[in-house]
């Protein structure tokens, strides 16, 4: 099948593609270096809609290459360049088109189509140049890799091969060409390490230093300087040196390092990184076509696999649903927040004060029960501002401004009389919280939002004794507050739309991923994590070894094992939440006597790290009282996943959140659960757990899976 036919078939499967044009324009190079054809990739929209490649876009590029190839053969041009519209080079394959693919053969065609078009750039007959003028990702980077020379702008906002991050491999030449261009070790850094490190982007200087680009120019006249450089290269005035690639042991070591990185991030649970590493390993022999073929197969396999579909689903949740929270009231109802009050000046309260201060840049007042605590809270905020200043994250003027905005007072009336948003972070005890809110209501303006950072108490109950309970909202952050994006916004029974809209408005300014949650015990993340941990604890209590229980969930590729997570949260807090949930749902949430004993013994966790690796603390081992039911890893895993699936099913029935998507968004952004699980419900669906437990899947086919 010809490339054109291949792409035509693929284009029929993707009628809604945003098509990228490949404009060919001719120009005279400086220094009389000759006539040059410059291809501009442009989808016709501004930079807010970056240029992508779908089948029709590839066909356009193919046609442009036809044209310049003929011109090259006729001796009409001395070279060919390729660049992008302002601020954007190209950001790779159009993922919407990938989502639609149902058949392995169609997925294979996408890989082949890209290869067939891109690789022509190295066979035009005249030198080819890529000018990375702006954001370049995935297939965008790869189209340039097929050119003979590359320049990059100092001003690029993004440059990466993010495929492994999503669940793919750089499959339009990236895995094969990059190690052959810059060496396997650097290629592993770009393709594996950066990708798995929250999709880290390269700056222009790094693109040059890595050897991906041959020259770096400033943004102000990037294209002019690139074309001048091109003329110099063509005239022989500039010689481009490429490093000699070490194809010996260094190559194997690089691949081994890649596997180590992948293991430490996904624990073998997601295939993409390993598939990419296999191709990089094979690319050692320098056989490009063999590499392209391997890329095609890997792409098609991954496109038809659940991890990629989960990855794209998760990406879209974070990028889209996370920015437009489901069920949030119209933002026009939101009231302005020009001053914030924080009740409590402990560590959590101080962290909240710092966050509000930095993002809202309005006065923030802390109160507490004695001057010493108030001073300590304000002191903490000042110290954090100094740290930011020291790191160069803010300048002195900004530091002065922020410090002047934070204050602490003992008298709530003095602090809160003109506050628009008051959040409490006091002791988790309903009576205490009710008392605090009553005191605040007595002095705060009538319109002020009263927010609570409670993790497990009822927002409705907290509001119940107030004159204006409609202004109370739950505002549940996750630790560390500055890092984890999730904010569960809880609507109490009487919370009104204006208060809720104000809360969402504040969340947006705080740059948090806000999810609307019903006032249900422990809300979303803590409820699921507690059920999950509870089941692990149950099987240990019943007699399975700690080691087997922990290993059972390793194939999920969670960021840390359950007991390490417990250690991070603190066993006492874990116990407290399990007790709370046990009171609400005694039939499903147990309180582990072993956990209670560990807490009572004052242990901070189950493990000691004397050997450098976690090992069961002998003192904990001595405390544990286990039964005699010993399960296999598989049996444990089944029990745990069944429990999680059951709990999520019940939460959706109760209307805790609008849809399963919100559960997944919470787990990704609040607990760091991985993209390849899609949070968790896509994984439960594809492993058959959902149907086994609830009789149905959480998500319709195609949402986070291959469409039916």
């Amino acid at each position, binding site marked *: 099948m010809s490339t054109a036919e291949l792409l035509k078939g693929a284009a029929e499967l993707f009628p809604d593609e945003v098509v990228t044009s490949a404009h060919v324009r001719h120009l005279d190079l400086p220094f009389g270096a000759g006539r040059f054809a410059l*291809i501009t990739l442009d989808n016709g929209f501004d930079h807010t809609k970056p240029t992508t490649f779908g089948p029709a876009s590839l066909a356009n590029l193919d046609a442009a290459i036809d044209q310049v190839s003929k011109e090259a053969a006729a001796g009409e041009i001395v070279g060919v360049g390729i660049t992008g519209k302002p601020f954007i080079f190209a950001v790779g394959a159009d993922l919407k088109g990938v989502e639609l693919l149902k058949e392995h053969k169609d997925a294979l065609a996408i890989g082949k189509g890209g290869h067939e078009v891109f690789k022509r750039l190295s066979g035009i007959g005249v030198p080819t140049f890529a000018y990375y003028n702006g954001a370049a990702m995935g297939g965008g980077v790869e189209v340039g890799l097929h050119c003979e020379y590359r320049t990059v702008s100092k001003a690029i906002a993004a440059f990466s091969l993010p495929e492994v991050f999503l669940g793919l491999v750089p499959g339009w030449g990236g895995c094969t060409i990059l190690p052959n261009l810059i060496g396997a070790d650097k290629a592993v850094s770009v393709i594996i390490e950066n990708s798995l490190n929250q999709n880290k982007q390269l700056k222009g200087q790094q693109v040059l230093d890595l050897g991906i680009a041959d020259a770096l120019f400033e943004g*102000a006249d990037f294209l002019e300087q690139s074309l001048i450089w091109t003329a110099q290269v063509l005239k022989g005035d500039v010689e481009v040196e490429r490093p000699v690639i070490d194809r010996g042991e260094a190559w194997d070591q690089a691949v081994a390092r890649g596997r180590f990185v992948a293991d430490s991030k996904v624990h073998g649970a997601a295939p993409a990184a390993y598939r990419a590493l296999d191709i990089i390993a094979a690319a050692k022999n320098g056989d490009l076509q063999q590499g392209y073929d391997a890329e095609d197969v890997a792409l098609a396999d991954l496109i038809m696999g659940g991890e990629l579909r989960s990855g794209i689903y998760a990406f879209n949740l974070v990028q889209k649903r996370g920015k437009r929270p489901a069920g949030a009231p119209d933002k026009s109802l939101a009231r302005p927040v020009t001053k914030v009050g924080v009740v409590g000046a402990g560590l959590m309260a101080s962290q909240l004060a710092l966050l509000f201060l930095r993002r809202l840049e309005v006065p923030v007042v802390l109160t507490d029960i004695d001057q010493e605590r108030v001073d300590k809270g304000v002191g903490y905020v000042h110290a954090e501002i100094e740290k930011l200043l020291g790191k160069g994250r803010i300048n002195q003027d900004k530091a002065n401004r922020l410090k002047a905005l934070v204050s602490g007072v003992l008298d709530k009336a003095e602090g809160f009389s003109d506050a628009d948003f008051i959040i409490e972070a006091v002791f988790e005890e309903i009576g205490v919280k009710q008392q605090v809110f009553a005191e605040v209501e007595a002095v705060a303006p009538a319109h002020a939002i009263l927010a609570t950072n409670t993790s497990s108490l009822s927002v409705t109950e907290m509001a119940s004794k107030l004159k204006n309970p409609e202004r109370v909202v739950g505002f549940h952050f996750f630790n560390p507050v500055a890092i984890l994006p999730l904010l569960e916004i809880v609507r109490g029974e009487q919370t009104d739309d204006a208060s809720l809209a104000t809360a969402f408005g504040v969340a947006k300014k705080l740059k948090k991923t806000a999810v609307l949650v019903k006032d249900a015990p422990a809300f979303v993340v803590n409820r699921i994590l507690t059920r999950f941990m509870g089941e692990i604890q149950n099987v240990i209590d019943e007699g399975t070894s700690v080691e087997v229980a922990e290993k059972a969930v390793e194939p999920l590729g969670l960021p840390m094992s359950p007991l390490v997570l417990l250690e991070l949260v603190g066993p006492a807090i874990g116990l407290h939440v399990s007790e709370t949930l046990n009171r609400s749902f005694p039939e499903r949430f147990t309180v582990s006597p072993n956990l209670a004993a560990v807490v009572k013994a004052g242990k901070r966790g189950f493990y000691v790290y004397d050997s450098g690796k976690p090992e069961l603390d002998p003192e904990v081992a001595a405390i544990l009282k286990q039964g005699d039911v010993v399960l296999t890893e598989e049996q444990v895993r089944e029990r745990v996943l069944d429990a999680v699936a059951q709990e999520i099913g019940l939460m959706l029935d109760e209307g805790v959140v609008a849809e399963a998507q919100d559960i997944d968004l919470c787990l990704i952004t609040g607990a760091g659960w991985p993209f390849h699980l899609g949070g968790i419900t896509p994984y439960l669906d594809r492993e058959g757990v959902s149907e086994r437990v609830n009789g149905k899947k959480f998500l319709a086919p195609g949402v986070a899976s291959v469409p039916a």
Partner: protein
Amino acid sequence: MPRTVRDVVFVDGVRTPFGKAGPKGIYHETRADDLVVKAIRELLRRNPGLEPKQIDEVAIAATTQIGDQGLTLGRTAGILAGLPQSVPGYSIDRMCAGALTAVTSVAGSIAFGAYDAVIAGGVEHMGRHPMGEGVDPNPRFVSEKLVDESALFMGMTAENLHDRYPTITKQRADEYAVRSQEKAAKAYANGKIQQDLVPVSVRRTNPEAGETGWGLVTADEPMRPGTSLESLAGLKTPFRVHGRVTAGNAAGLNDGATASIIASEDFARENNLPVKMRLVSYAFAGVEPEVMGYGPIPATEKALAKAGLSIEDINLFEINEAFAVQVLAFLEHYGIADDDARVNQYGGAIAYGHPLASSGVRLMTQLARQFEEQPEVRYGLTTMCVGFGMGATVIWENPHHKDAGGDK
């Protein structure tokens, strides 16, 4: 405190290629401030001896100072060009003589001792900012007959100048225009012009204007090599029925930018910067607005008088060709032949174009190149007419001349 007036020199000048204004012009989708930025950056690349932080001022002229020519262009273009934030900048306006006035203003400050080195230039994107955009002339101009109504229409003032010099016929104007095109084509063929052009990348999205995508502009767009008297003869005279001024014997509507480095001579020498021209004197003069093309004559009289020179001392002329008649009136006044070899050796604005406030530095850049080639010439001048009845002249000394710097 005692002061010493310091010598001021023209270190270097560059410009963008000039374009035709309008939807099909090469710069139609290019911002005016970007044109200035590219010129400034090219100057800095060409003169690595000048550390950007040593620049004391960025003076950029534009006639229509709104949109991408507004926002105190000298300051914003400096930041956009990557100059340190410590380098200040301002905007300047004297219509066609904007860049020339930028040079003389900063030169005065350098002589006074306020600056050592300065960037001075100008821009006009007449496609994005057509002449007269946003103007609001005071009604008293007309009601009190302060100026003739034709004063605001440059083509009409050129016809008025033909009236003042009845011997300057349309034929003479056309012949002058043909020579300008010929000289410009020759200068291009000999590589005289390109050496001071900065290539500019340009985007085109409208297929009706030509190939779409990014391109690179390396040459002036308005030039019409091969222009003949016959081809000019049939052109319309849009400013007056049976008039003499046509699109062929006048500069067009154009887009472009220029920039130069002006410095004290001591600073230039200490920093090993080139000294291409030494400032001798400058002057501006006002005339009746309706014959603004007459302006260069009194301006030159003043500048010569201040320099203690006579017209015979000037052996190279760069006269802006807003209209052929305006050059011819100047030559006629001084008794210089229409085709005198000392005048506009590389051709002029009739060929290259005249993006109003940018043109002054183009004249200087070309004169500087002629000084290099002709060390036997000691003095040259750059002069131009200015809207609303003004003229502007700068007299320069050739530092390559054996007596340069000495007494006359």
